[in-house]
C-alpha cells in the first residue's frame, strides 16, 4: 500500500523512528542499509587495470582499491587527452624528412601510454585505432603529422559520441588518403572514371555494421531459409561511393591539383562542389538520397543512415569488448553493452563513454565468471607496455624507440599491414579454440616466429638492457635512446628465492601465480648462486613475463 511503501523508503533517513506508519499489520522495520561491498583485492585491481590501462602498477592498484571501479573510471574520463601532434610539430624543421618523424610518432605514443595519467583514454584510443585503422605502411608513410593528429582525434573522442567520431574520421585526411575518399570524384564516363568504392565499402564492413545483419546480442539474423542476411549489396556501395565525392585537402588551389602539405594534412577535408556527384544515391534500409543536394547534406545523411542501422550497437560492442576484456563475450554481455550504445540511459544513442563503462563494469569482466573462456591473450604491445610500466622503462634521452616496433613485435601503433588490423575479430587458431567455435584474435600474430621473437626481445630487454648495463661497452650497442628497465628492488632481495618470486608475481601477475610456474622459477634459481643477484632477478622476471599466464589477461 502506498503509504507504507513511502514510509519504508523514508524510514532509514529518520533517526530513531521504527515501526511507524499505519497499515494493517506487517513488519514496518526499515530495511538495513546494504552492507558495504567487499574490498577489492590486489589481484582484482590488477586484473581490472590490465583491462583499463597499459599495464597494472602497484600505485594504480591502490587507487582502484581506494576508489573502487566506477569512481576510478569517472576520474579517468575527466582526464584530458595526452596528444601526439604538438610534439611532432615541434620537431618539424628544414632538412628533417617527414618519414623520419614516424619514429618520433612511435616515441610519443610510448611516452603517453607509459607515463601519462589518461590511461583509460589512451587504452580506448588504442582500441579504436585497431578498429578505425589507418597506417603508416603505404600511402601515409610521409605524413607523420596526419597520423599523429588522427590518433589524437581518437583519444579526444574516446568517451564522446560515435556519430561525431565517424564524421571526424571520415573527414580526416589521413583516412581520406588511406581509403581513397580524398580526391574521389563524381563519375566521368567519357574518361572511364567512376567513384572509388574503397571507403564506402570499408566504412560499412569494418567501422560500423559489418557484412551481415545482427541481432542485438551479436548473433547473426537468419532469413526463413536459415541463411545470414547481407547488410548491403553492390548498388548500396555505389550509392555511398557517390556520396563520398568532392572532398580533398583543405585550401587546395584546385581539386585535382590537391597535394598534402604540412598544414592541410591535419585539418578536415574540404568540399569542392563541382566534383560532388549530384545524382540520387541509394543507401541502407531503402533510403534514397535525392538528387541535387550539397556534399555536406549528402554526407550528413549518409552517416546518419549508417549510424542508425541497428547493427552498430552489437557490432561496436563486440569489437570494443574484444579489445578490452574478453575475446568471446556471451550473448548477454554483448546485448547489455549494445543496449547502452543504443541508449545510454538518457536517451542518447552512441555514447562511447557509457559503452566503455558498461564493458568494464559488467559482471562478465570480473575474474572467475566463466573460467575457461573468459579473458583474452594480451597483444604483444600490451605485454611490452606492462613490463615497461612495472619496471620503469626509460632511456637517457627520454625517447622510446625503435620506430619499427611492428617488425619486432608483430604490431606497432598505426603500423597495421592493412585496414584489417594486425588480427581479425574472427580469427580462431586451429585446435581446441576453433573446434569449440571460439575466437582468439590476438593469437593470429602469435605464430611460432612471432612468439620466439617476442620472447627473445624480452630476454634481451631484461638481461642486457637494464639499468646495470655498462654504457661504455662498445659491444652493448648502447646509446642515449636505448630503453632500460630497472629492477633494483628485485635484485635487493634476490638471495631469497621465495621473496623474489613473490615480488615478481605480485608486480606482473597481481599476486596469483600457478604452482608450476612458481616451482619452476624457484628450481632454476636454485642453480644460480645466491650472490649473483642480477642473474637471479633476470631469470625470475624472464620466466614469469614470458609465461602463458602472463600472456593471458583474465
Amino acid at each position, binding site marked *: 500500500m502506498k503509504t507504507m511503501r513511502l514510509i519504508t523508503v523514508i524510514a532509514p533517513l529518520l533517526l530513531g523512528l521504527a515501526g511507524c506508519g499505519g497499515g494493517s499489520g506487517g513488519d514496518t522495520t526499515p530495511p538495513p542499509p546494504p552492507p558495504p561491498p567487499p574490498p577489492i583485492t590486489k589481484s582484482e585491481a590488477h586484473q581490472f587495470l590490465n583491462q583499463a590501462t597499459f599495464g597494472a602498477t602497484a600505485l594504480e592498484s591502490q587507487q582502484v582499491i581506494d576508489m573502487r571501479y566506477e569512481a576510478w573510471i569517472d576520474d579517468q574520463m575527466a582526464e584530458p587527452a595526452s596528444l601526439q601532434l604538438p610534439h611532432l610539430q615541434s620537431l618539424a624543421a628544414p632538412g628533417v624528412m617527414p618519414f623520419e618523424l614516424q619514429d618520433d610518432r612511435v616515441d610519443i605514443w610510448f611516452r603517453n601510454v607509459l607515463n601519462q595519467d589518461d590511461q583509460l583514454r589512451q587504452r580506448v584510443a588504442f582500441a579504436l585505432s585497431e578498429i578505425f585503422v589507418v597506417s603508416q605502411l603505404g600511402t601515409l608513410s610521409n605524413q607523420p603529422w596526419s597520423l599523429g593528429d588522427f590518433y589524437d582525434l581518437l583519444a579526444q573522442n574516446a568517451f564522446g559520441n560515435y556519430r561525431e567520431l565517424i564524421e571526424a574520421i571520415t573527414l580526416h585526411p589521413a583516412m581520406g588518403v588511406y581509403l581513397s575518399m580524398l580526391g574521389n570524384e563524381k563519375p566521368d564516363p567519357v574518361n572511364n572514371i567512376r567513384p572509388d568504392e574503397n571507403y564506402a565499402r570499408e566504412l560499412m564492413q569494418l567501422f560500423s555494421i559489418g557484412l551481415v545483419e545482427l541481432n542485438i546480442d551479436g548473433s547473426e539474423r537468419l532469413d526463413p531459409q536459415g541463411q545470414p542476411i547481407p547488410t548491403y549489396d553492390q548498388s548500396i556501395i555505389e550509392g555511398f561511393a557517390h556520396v563520398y565525392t568532392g572532398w580533398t585537402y583543405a585550401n587546395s588551389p584546385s581539386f585535382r591539383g590537391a597535394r598534402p602539405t604540412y598544414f592541410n594534412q591535419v585539418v578536415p577535408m574540404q568540399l569542392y562542389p563541382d566534383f560532388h556527384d549530384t545524382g540520387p544515391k541509394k543507401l541502407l534500409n531503402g533510403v534514397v538520397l535525392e538528387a541535387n543536394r550539397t556534399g555536406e547534406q549528402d554526407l550528413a545523411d549518409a552517416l546518419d543512415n549508417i549510424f542508425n542501422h541497428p547493427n552498430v550497437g552489437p557490432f561496436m560492442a563486440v569489437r570494443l569488448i574484444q579489445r578490452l576484456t574478453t575475446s568471446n563475450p556471451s550473448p548477454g554481455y554483448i546485448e547489455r553493452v549494445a543496449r547502452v550504445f543504443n541508449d545510454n540511459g538518457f536517451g542518447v544513442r552512441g555514447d562511447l563513454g557509457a559503452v566503455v563503462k558498461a564493458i568494464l563494469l559488467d559482471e562478465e569482466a570480473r575474474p572467475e565468471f566463466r573460467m575457461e573462456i573468459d579473458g583474452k591473450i594480451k597483444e604483444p604491445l600490451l605485454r611490452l607496455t606492462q613490463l615497461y610500466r612495472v619496471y620503469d622503462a626509460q632511456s637517457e634521452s627520454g625517447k622510446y624507440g625503435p620506430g619499427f616496433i611492428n617488425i619486432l613485435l608483430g604490431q606497432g601503433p598505426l603500423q597495421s599491414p592493412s585496414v584489417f588490423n594486425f588480427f581479425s575479430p574472427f580469427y580462431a587458431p586451429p585446435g581446441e579454440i576453433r573446434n569449440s567455435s571460439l575466437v582468439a584474435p590476438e593469437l593470429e600474430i602469435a605464430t*611460432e616466429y612471432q612468439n620466439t621473437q617476442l620472447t627473445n626481445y624480452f630476454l634481451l630487454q631484461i638481461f642486457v638492457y637494464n639499468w646495470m648495463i655498462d654504457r661504455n661497452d662498445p659491444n652493448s650497442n648502447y646509446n642515449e635512446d636505448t630503453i632500460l628497465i630497472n629492477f633494483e628492488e628485485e635484485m635487493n632481495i634476490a638471495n631469497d628465492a621465495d621473496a623474489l618470486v613473490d615480488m615478481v608475481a605480485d608486480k606482473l601477475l597481481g599476486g596469483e601465480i*600457478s604452482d608450476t610456474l612458481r616451482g619452476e622459477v624457484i628450481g632454476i634459481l636454485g642453480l644460480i648462486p645466491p650472490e649473483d643477484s642480477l642473474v637471479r632477478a633476470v631469470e625470475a622476471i624472464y620466466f614469469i613475463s614470458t609465461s602463458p599466464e602472463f600472456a593471458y589477461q583474465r
Partner: protein
Amino acid sequence: MARINRRQFLKTTSAAAAFAATPGLAYSQVVGGGGPFDDYRALVCLFMFGGNDSFNMLVPRSGAAYSAYLAARSGLPENGGLAIPQADLLPISPLLGADEMDFGLHPGMSALQTLFEDGKASFVANVGPLVEPTTREQFVNGGVALPPQLFSHNDQQDQWQSLKGNATSRTGWAGRMADLIRTNVTDQQMATNASLFGTNLFQSADETIAYIMGPNGPVEFFGFSSDPNAGFGYEQRSTFERILGADYESVYERAFAEVQQRAIDSVDNVLGALRADTTPTFDGVFPTGQLGTQLRTVAQLIAANGDLQMKRQVFFVATGGFDTHDNQVADQLDLLGNISNSMAAFQAALESIGMEQQVTTFTQSDFGRTLSSNGDGSDHAWGGHQIVMGGNVNGQRIYGDYPVPEIGGLLDVGGGRFIPSTSADQYAATLARWFGIPDVDLDIVAPNLANFAERDLGFMIA
C-alpha cells in the same frame, strides 16, 4: 623423432563430419588423398599482395591487339596512360596460345623471358575466382552465383586462397591438401605447410597446422640449448618447456602454450637442417630483399628435405606493393623486376641441386587491374594472368584464353575489368593433381571445380 599430432588421430571422425556438413562434398577417403609417396614434391605459392596489373606483365606486342591495348590503357605514360611502348616489350614465342596475338613481357622481366623461352615457365591467362562459368549478361542481370565482395582486397585474397565461393570456410586449399595426405606423411619432421610470410588462410586447415617461419627461417630462442651437456642453456630450455606443459585452466593459455611448444619442437629440426654442412647457402644467387630472402630459405629447406624426411611440402611466400592505384609505371618496373629476378634465381638454385623437376612454383594475386587508367594508375579488377614455373611445367605456353585487351569487349564488366575465363579452382586443381591428390579428392581441394568443364588445365607434364 616424428612429430605426431595427437589431434590428427583423435579427430578423424569429426573431420569426416565437418566435410560431410559442407554441401556437395563427400569425404571419399578418411585415410588418404594420395600416397604413400615414394617421391618428393613441393609447391611454392608466390602471392602478390595488392592485385597485380598483369595486363602490363603479359602484353600483346603487335597489330590490332597492341592498338587495342594502347587505346584501352589511355595511351602512353607521357599522355597519362599506362601502356608500355611497343618497342620496349620483350618478345616471347609461345608454343601455345599465340594464334590470335603476338606477345611480349614487361621490360623489367628479362629473366622471366629467358625462363619462358627455355620452357621452364608458362602463363595462365585471365584466371580468377569464379563459382561457375559467367558471362557478362549473367553478371549484370543475375542468374549465376558470383564470388562475394568482388574487387575487395581481403575478400579476393580469401577467394584465391580458400576457393570458398559463397560458402564460409576456415580452410584454404593447401590446408585441405595437407589434411587429405596427413596420414601418409607422419614421418615428416616439419608440417606439410610452411609459411615465410605469416599466418594465411591458404594453409589453414581443420587438422594440420602450418608452420610459420620468418624470411630467414625459424628463429631460435636465445639462451636455450637442447644438448643435455650444455649446462644452463639446457636448464633454461627445460624449465621453459615444463612451464609450457602445465595444466592451464584457460583455453587461451593452452593455445598460447601450444604455439610456444611447437616453436621449440620445430626449431631444432628445421634450423639443424638449414645449417647442415650439406645444405647449400646459395650465396649471391638471390636478389636482396624480402622475396629473394624467402625464396632462398625455401630453396635451402628443399635441399634439406631428406634430413627432415619430407615427402610433400607447400611453401607460402609473398610480397606486397601491387595495389598500384598511383605511380604505376615507375612502381611496376621494380615490382615485376623483383618477381622476375627472384623466380629465376629460385629456379637456378633448384637446378643446381637437381630438384627442378620436383618443385612447381605458381603465382596468385588478389585480382588483375582495370585496363583503364585513373590518371596514373589502375583500380581493382578481376581476371588476371598468373605464372607457373618448374621442371615439370609444360613451359613456353600460354594457357587459358587471353582476351583482347579492349574496353567494352565481351568479358568487360566495366572499365576493362575482365570476367575470368579460367577459374582459380581449375588452376588449383591442376596443381593439386600434380602434387598427388587423386582426382576424386580434387573437389575437396577445389570445391567449385565440378561447375567447370576442364578439371585439368594441362600445364603440368606429369
